[in-house]
């Protein structure tokens, strides 16, 4: 039973087709890579998966808890549906502490009302301390525990990317979308991250879709790879299959 079905998905801006006629199905529990040259429509595809854009035609259907079509997507509803993401150009809350950033990811799992937050009724303490403990565990996984009170903007680039992943995990998603998680990391960091992504997939029972330019990462952990070029899906398959696909080689190296 596939957890994501993409049917004839297209998105155009003005006259430009950023994504056109994408069809795919994705099974649960896998790590999926989305690759392609710059401007191939990968991020637009992610934005369609997370309700930031609505499709010009076609649709996305999730089957995580229940069936949900992109017709009812709204950005703020996605974590409630079990979908969390990170951003290509890191969007942390720069003037909030690491702890608060990750706590914010926990937003939809909080259960207390306005009166409790104004008057600190018992449910405030119950929820906040539970969230606090779970967030500390997440920070420990990402080796960020001793930096929990630092401002997000004070961290180096690689660690900011990790905070963003931790924040997304705090939302307790079933599907995690990572937009270039290794961008700006050195080879050692990338290697470490690759192992970490693999580990959190099993630990949190996730399906992960990632956009990545670093082929060592993609080929290392993805069980299936989709290749985009000029907004269309030009190939899909195991890393080995797409590596040897002629159209893919052409898209990357140019030529006829």
């Amino acid at each position, binding site marked *: 039973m596939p957890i994501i079905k993409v049917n004839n998905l297209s998105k155009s801006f003005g006259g430009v087709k950023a994504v056109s006629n994408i069809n795919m199905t994705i099974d649960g529990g896998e790590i999926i890579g989305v690759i392609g040259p710059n401007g191939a429509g990968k991020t637009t595809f992610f934005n369609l998966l997370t309700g930031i854009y609505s499709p010009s035609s076609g649709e996305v259907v999730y089957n995580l808890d229940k069936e949900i079509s992109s017709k009812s997507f709204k950005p*703020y*509803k996605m*974590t*409630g549906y079990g979908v969390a993401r990170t951003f290509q150009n890191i*969007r942390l*809350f720069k003037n*909030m502490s690491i702890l608060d950033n990750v706590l*914010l990811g926990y937003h939809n799992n909080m259960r207390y009302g306005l009166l409790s*937050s104004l008057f*600190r009724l018992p449910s405030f303490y119950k929820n906040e301390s539970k969230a606090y403990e779970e967030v500390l565990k997440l920070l420990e996984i990402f080796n960020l525990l001793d930096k929990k009170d630092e401002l997000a903007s004070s961290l180096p680039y690689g660690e900011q990317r990790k905070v963003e992943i931790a924040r997304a995990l705090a939302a307790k998603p079933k599907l995690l979308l990572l937009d270039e998680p290794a961008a700006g990391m050195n080879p050692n960091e990338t290697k470490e991250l690759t192992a970490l992504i693999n580990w959190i997939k099993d630990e949190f029972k996730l399906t992960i879709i990632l956009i990545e330019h670093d082929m060592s990462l993609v080929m290392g952990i993805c069980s299936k790879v989709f290749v985009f070029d000029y907004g269309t899906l030009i190939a899909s398959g195991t890393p080995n299959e797409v590596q040897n696909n002629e159209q893919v080689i052409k898209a990357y190296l140019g030529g006829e």
Partner: protein
Amino acid sequence: MKLFNKKNTLSMLAVLGVYAIAGLLINTGFIDSYIFLNIVLIGINIILAVSLNLITGFTGQFSLGHAAFMSIGAYAAGILTAKLDQPFWVGIAGAALFAAFAGIVIGIPTLRLKGDYLAIATLGFAEIVKIIGLNTEYIGGATGLNDIPRYTTWTWLYFCVAATVLLISNFIKSYKGRACIAIGEDEIAAEAMGVNTTYYKVLAFTLGAFFAGIAGALYANYFYFLKPDSFGFMKSIDILVIVVFGGMGSIKGSIIGAILLSVISLFLQGIPELRMVVYSLILFLIMVYRPQGIMGKSSLKFFRKRGVLYANHQGK
């Protein structure tokens, strides 16, 4: 995360101590009615600044119409206590609820706008409220509403200020408050993490209006007399100046800012002809030499550097 830890107990004792000592000084006449009048003004300004800080400093929604909520509260309390002979607590509650309701009504349409556009729309709403006030016979129109009973005492004032500061600080440290701060930082990221941005913007706006309404009630029931003109554009600016001077996103800053600016304007009353000229120069110097305010550290997104790069992000 406990209610009665050492720090909380100490600050509670400090709060009660200040209340008792100042109350004693007022009762024994050490604080005369002129000083007390200024204390009332400071208290009202603290409530206004802290409540606007929730909207503008924390949630990042630029409002130039905060005085309108104060005026709605003031008139509601005035009508309830003067015309309907209700006790003060009904006046305060009514003021807060009416202002909060106005906050919802004004917030839902305008909070879709961003930055300067939101500022000018809130300014517009505040002017509309003022003009409606000027033309409504029941509340005295341009001549104003008279003979409001003087119910605002030290006790009412102090506990309204303390409640405002405590409740807004609590709110800020709850997950709802974090959601508001996140919106001020990066709306798109907040939304992607499950924050219903419209809801939280309206919530912050409504809470801010609620407390501004209380400030209005304290004002109405201290000065006997209300005129729509007192709550115009300049009053909204005065509140904004306190928030910026104190530091955006700092409740302590708003309290200190309200006290300092009230004291400054008290001194300026000694030179009535040049008062506004000197005030404008002080404002200018603060903005040039301390634009982040007394307690300011953060540079929330909207308030960061201007320029074209930023402008391209305006329409998000």
